Structure formats: C-alpha cells, structure tokens
C-alpha cells in the first residue's frame, strides 16, 4: 500500500512539475500548437448541447459537419454528455487515459478545470497573431468569462443572461401595462400580487435555486453582495449584500407574490400560462415562444434591479477548452474552436439554440443574424445586458461543488423557511469557508 502511495505521489509530482513548467515565462515554440497541415487527424469533441434532444443537438451537429466538409483530413467525433455530467465524464476519461481534445465545460467548473486537469492558457498555446485575429471582434466582457487570474483558459462559447419573461396577456387581464414591465424587485412584487389577485394565477418565479448558481450570483451582485470575495479567498454569501437579496426573496414568498413551485415545475407552469413572470435563462426563449403561440403574448424584460442600484446580470453557460497535449491535435482542436465561435458559428447558435452571440457585429449584419434579429426583437434585452455582463465566478479548490451545494441549501432554507436569514447564511458561510483551499 505504501508502495502504491509513493508511486502515485511520484506520478503527481511529475505532473505538477510539468504543470509548473507550463506556467514558466516565455513559452518556447515547442509548447505551441502545430502549424496548419493537411495530414489526417482525428479529434474528440465533448459537448453538452449534443446530449439535448432536438434543436441544440441538431444545430451543433450542423456546425461540426460544416467545419469538416471543406477539410476532410480532420475528423471530429462528437461525444454527447449532459451539462450536469460532462465534467465527471471528462475526468473519468482522463483517468482512463482517453484525453478529450476539445471539451465544452460549465463556467462554475473553471477553477477546478484549470488547477486539476492541466489545461494551459489558450493565449500560451495559440500564436498571438492568430489569437488576436480571431478574438478581435468579440465582446471583451464575454471573452473575460473563461479567464482566471487574468489568463484566458477557455474560450467563452454558449451562454445567456437572466431574462424576465412575462405573460403580457395576464398583465392586461390584471390591469397592468405590458409596455411597462417591472424594472425593480419592488415593482415585480407589486405586479405579481395584482396579477395573482386578478387572475388567480401564480405571480413570479425567480429561477435562482438551481445548483448552477449563476443567476443567484447576479442577484447578489445587483444588491452589492458577492458569493465569493474578489481575491477568491473568502466565501461571502453570508454578508449583508447577499443577505439583503435573500430577504427580498423571503418577502416575495411571505407576501404570496412568489409562485409556490419547484424549480423543475416553473418552466412548465409558465408555458401553460399559469405563471405571470419568470426570471430565467434566455435559452428558454424558443420553448416559451412555441408554447405561447396562439395562447398568450410572450414578452421579455431585463433583469430587475434593487431600487436605484443598477442590476448586474451574470452569465450562464460554458467555454470551450483544449485538453489535448499533442500539437497536431491541438491545431485541429483550435481550428474547431475557431469555427464554433466564428460569425457563422454564432449565427447558428443564436438563431437555432437561443444563446447569445459573443460577436455583436453580426447582430444586424444581413449576412448573419440581421433578418433573424428583426423577426425576434425579444433578444434585445438579452443583448443589451451582454455589454455589462459580470463573470459567473467559480468557487475554488477541490471542494468547490460542495461549497456551491452548501450555498444553495442555505438559500433554500433562508427563503422558504422561517429562521433568521442572516444567521442561516452566516453559519453556511462559515461551514463553506472551512472547505476552501488552505493555502
């Protein structure tokens, strides 16, 4: 057994010294990806949109096919894994020695991915001029989403911002002006209560209770709070800004403005016309539009703010990471990443799946999204939020998932229970802090 440990330690020591050399300044040419070539190469692409039924999968397959058609020397094997499972799958395959070449990984896993999977900064492996040429037209706030300690490790790929969808038909029935959607949480509460009194339907569902805490972090930020301190050393969801945001949610519940629904039911309730407002990812837009057709009028507004404080929307979603260590495969991987995040790539992703384009210059360009944007003005609030996007922060260390779980368990208890909110959140913060990396 001791032999086993020492072997593992030796192995990991080797790995960490390897990682250390990757962080060494002035990377030599050898560490960069190979120049373009026409030699046959085959790469794997782990993608969670592929694992969804219907449109997400079809659009992704379409993009892969478009990418490989003009360059038959590159073979791309799409590996579909759901977003909740994809990191575990990548980990398992790494352990088994089948390194994925390109993987779409959720932003909340960023810290873990960088520190544990041996991912190198993209800016280190991609030649600077190629990097500049490709990322030139991208929204800087978007490009920053896949960055840690100032270095871009993953290229932001599919992501969305929080959108307040509302049922304009119910608004009219309740005597509310559908042209004036509530802009603050106080207004949301008022509208929800009126709507409920007049129509006997559910008021509002703020979709912040998911294990992926991006929307919750946006809510905290909007009230001057944070889930994690800026130096990434302290858990801060028990401090006043976050607690204030949770107090608002508790008030929504106690007043009856908050729909009594489980997270999993909220989308269905909204689509069946039984819910007035829902704050959720813009990705649902297509599903909501389909459900609303001929039944009710669907509209969208920006994320509500706390009083005069400007709302600070965060992003959901994922970035593309190049995990391959082989320079030839890295080249093919980079070409694939470039295509998926190209003007054409985002045209398909935005119009077919419903995520945001990281390139704003295609929005009104008739060659790309122009026609689609005119037909779908609902994407505007989402686009407007893109320029002032805040990074969805990943908890650090190997216990980051447990920290996120403690956070969401405490939020549930604080919002739907009767206990002292500040106390619940402070105790949870202390327990979470104990799980942070020691150094």
């Amino acid at each position, binding site marked *: 057994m001791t032999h086993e440990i020492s072997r593992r330690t030796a192995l990991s020591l080797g790995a960490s010294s390897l990682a250390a050399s990757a962080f060494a300044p002035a990377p030599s040419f050898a560490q960069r990806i190979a120049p373009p070539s026409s030699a046959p190469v085959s790469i794997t692409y782990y993608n969670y949109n592929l694992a969804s039924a219907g449109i997400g999968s079809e659009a992704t397959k379409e993009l892969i096919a478009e990418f490989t058609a003009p360059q038959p020397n590159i073979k791309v094997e799409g590996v579909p894994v759901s977003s909740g499972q994809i990191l575990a799958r990548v980990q398992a395959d*790494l352990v088994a020695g089948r390194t994925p070449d390109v993987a779409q990984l959720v932003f909340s896993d960023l810290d873990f991915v960088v520190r544990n999977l041996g991912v190198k900064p993209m800016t280190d492996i991609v030649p600077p001029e190629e990097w500049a040429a490709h990322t030139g037209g991208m929204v800087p706030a978007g490009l920053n989403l896949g960055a840690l300690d100032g270095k871009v490790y993953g290229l932001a790929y599919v992501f969305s911002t929080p959108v307040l969808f509302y049922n304009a038909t119910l608004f009219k029935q309740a005597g509310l002006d559908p042209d004036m959607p509530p802009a603050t949480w106080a207004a949301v509460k008022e509208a929800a209560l009126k709507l409920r009194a007049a129509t006997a339907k559910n008021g509002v569902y703020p979709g912040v209770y998911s294990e992926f805490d991006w929307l919750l972090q946006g809510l905290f930020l909007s009230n001057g709070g944070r889930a994690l301190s800026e130096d990434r050393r302290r858990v801060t969801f028990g401090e006043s800004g976050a607690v204030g945001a949770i107090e608002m949610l508790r008030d929504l519940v106690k007043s009856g403005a908050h729909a*009594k629904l489980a997270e999993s039911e909220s989308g269905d*309730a909204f689509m069946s016309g039984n819910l007035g407002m829902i704050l959720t990812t813009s990705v649902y837009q297509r599903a909501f539009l389909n459900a609303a057709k001929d039944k009710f009028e669907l509209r969208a507004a920006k994320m509500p703010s706390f009083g005069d404080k400007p709302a600070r929307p965060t992003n959901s979603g994922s970035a593309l990471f190049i995990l391959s260590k082989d320079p030839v495969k890295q080249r093919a991987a980079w070409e694939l990443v470039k295509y998926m995040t190209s003007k054409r790539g985002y045209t398909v992703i935005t119009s077919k799946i419903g995520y945001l384009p990281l390139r704003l210059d295609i929005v009104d360009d008739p060659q790309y999204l122009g026609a689609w944007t005119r037909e779908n003005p609902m994407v505007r609030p989402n686009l407007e939020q893109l320029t002032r996007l805040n990074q969805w922060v990943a908890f650090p260390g190997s216990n980051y*998932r447990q920290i996120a779980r403690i956070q969401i368990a*405490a939020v*549930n208890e604080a919002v739907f229970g009767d206990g002292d909110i500040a106390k619940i959140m402070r105790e949870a913060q202390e*327990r979470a802090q104990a799980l942070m990396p020691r150094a």
Partner: protein
Amino acid sequence: MTDAVRLPAPFARATAEAAAPVYRVPAWVAPALFLLPAFATLGLWIYWPLIEALRLSFYEWNLLPTAAPVYVGLDNYRNLLALAELRTAAWNTVVYTLGLLPLTVALPLLIALMTREAVGRAGAVYRAIIFVPMIIAPVVVAVVWRWLLNPDHGIVNKLLGGLGVPSLRFLQDPDTAIWTIIFITGWKLVGFSTLLFAAAMTNIDQSLVEAARIDGASESQIARRIVVPLVAPTGIFLTVLTVLHGAQWSFVYINVLTQGGPRHATTNLYYLLWEYGFGTFAIGWSTAAGMLLFAAFAVFAAIGLWAMRRTDRHAH
C-alpha cells in the same frame, strides 16, 4: 503457500506406494486449501476495497492522475458531520424505515393471508397482479407516479377533485412529500414481500391446520394462532431487510422526483452523502460517507441478526 508447493510429493507417493506416507500433512491443510478460494475472493472483492476505502477517507483527492492525493486526517469526516442537513437527513432515514414497515411487512402479510386459500389459476393471477410492480424499472415507476400525482393535470388529483377534495401537492408540499416517496417505494415492494410470505405459508405443515379445523378452530383463529406464528421468521427477516435497506430503496425516487427537496424534506442519509460525495469524484468525501454508514448500519445488522436467531429458535 509453501504448503501448497510441497503437497504434490506426498500425494504422488501415497498413490504409487499405497503405504504410510513419509511426510505427514497437518490435518488443517486440506480444509484450509478448500477454504482458500472462498477467502481469497472475499478478501479481494470485499475486505481489500473496504480497507482501501478506509485509507482513502483520510485523503482529499478527485481520482485524477493529474492531481495528487492530499492527506487531510479526519477532515472529511468532520465536514460531513458538520453538514446542516445531516440531522434532518438522519431523522428522515428513521421516518423512511419506520414508514416502510407497514408496506413491506404488515400489508403483505395481510394479503398473503387473504389469498392463502386462492389456489389454481385464480391464485396465480392474484399473485401475478401483486408482483407486477416489482419487475418495473424504478425510474419508470418514478416517472409514471410523477404524472399520476401532478397537481395540475394528474389523474389522482382529478379523481380527488371529483370527490370535492382540493388539489394536493403530493411531491411539492414539505409535509406530504416524504410520505409520497415512502408510498411509492413501498408500493413497489409489496409484491416481493407478499411472495415471501406466501412461500412461507405453503411450507406450513397442512396437518397442523387440519387438526385445528377438526378441533373446531375458526379460519381467523387458524390464521392468528397457527399461520402467523409459523411465518414469524419471514416477518423478522423482512423487518431486518427493511431496516437495513429501506432508506436505500427510496434513493431512486428521491433522485428522480424531489432531489431531496422541498427544503430537505425528502433527503435521507444515503442521498445527502451521495450529493456531497459523488459530484466530482471527491473520493475522500465519498469513502468517509461510506465508512460512517457502514459503522451505523453494522449496529442495526447485529441487532437484526440476533433477533432473527432468537425467533428461529422459538419457531423450532
């Protein structure tokens, strides 16, 4: 191992000369050799992983070859025991166990007693109907019940509505959710338990029943005084099985239907520990959780085995 190497010599000699062997193999060698494969497999598949799990429970590691295991002492245990939901989960585990007993012991016993006299084709049909839930895949069961119990358009609420009962939020209301999960878990197990009781009843010596009948005992007297005491060991067995596995059986339904919610109302020890341990292959958390459950349930198992032996003695 040296014994094994030396063995062929005396054996070969014994067959060749049919005389008294020169080397005497100690008497324990042969039985030991017969037992060796069984012990080796047991060691390899049960005890070695157990020891390895114990060792890993003191490390922080995500199974990745690219990251080193870090020795953290008792931290994994401390973190688990500090979880805010642990107390709720422990209490829920008790509720699950006790709540399941009527469905895994009492009700099946009743059904077995009532269908005892149903023989031939009718009996077979009866037993088949009761046994069918057992062979449906758990996830399918969960999804079907979710449809049936939906507050808006589920058939159960439609029927209740017909009786004037307001729509019940079976899985969403913290007060009813755990009982709903218990019911679904139990519903699937009734058939299994009934089958075991029915099998135990066919093993009862019919002459005892006939003798009682000749003495003028009524059917209910026969059931109470003869049948039930004679199937008591099966009852104890099912009770022990439920205590040891009951909370585990509900895992699938919790995972598919409520994810432990609303507000931890349906979480139990297994689900909670799985939630914290398995998301990122946090092997330290998971093995520490496994060790804690192992320790807790070893106590229950010991009590259960003792009870089973006692009733067995009484029954014979």
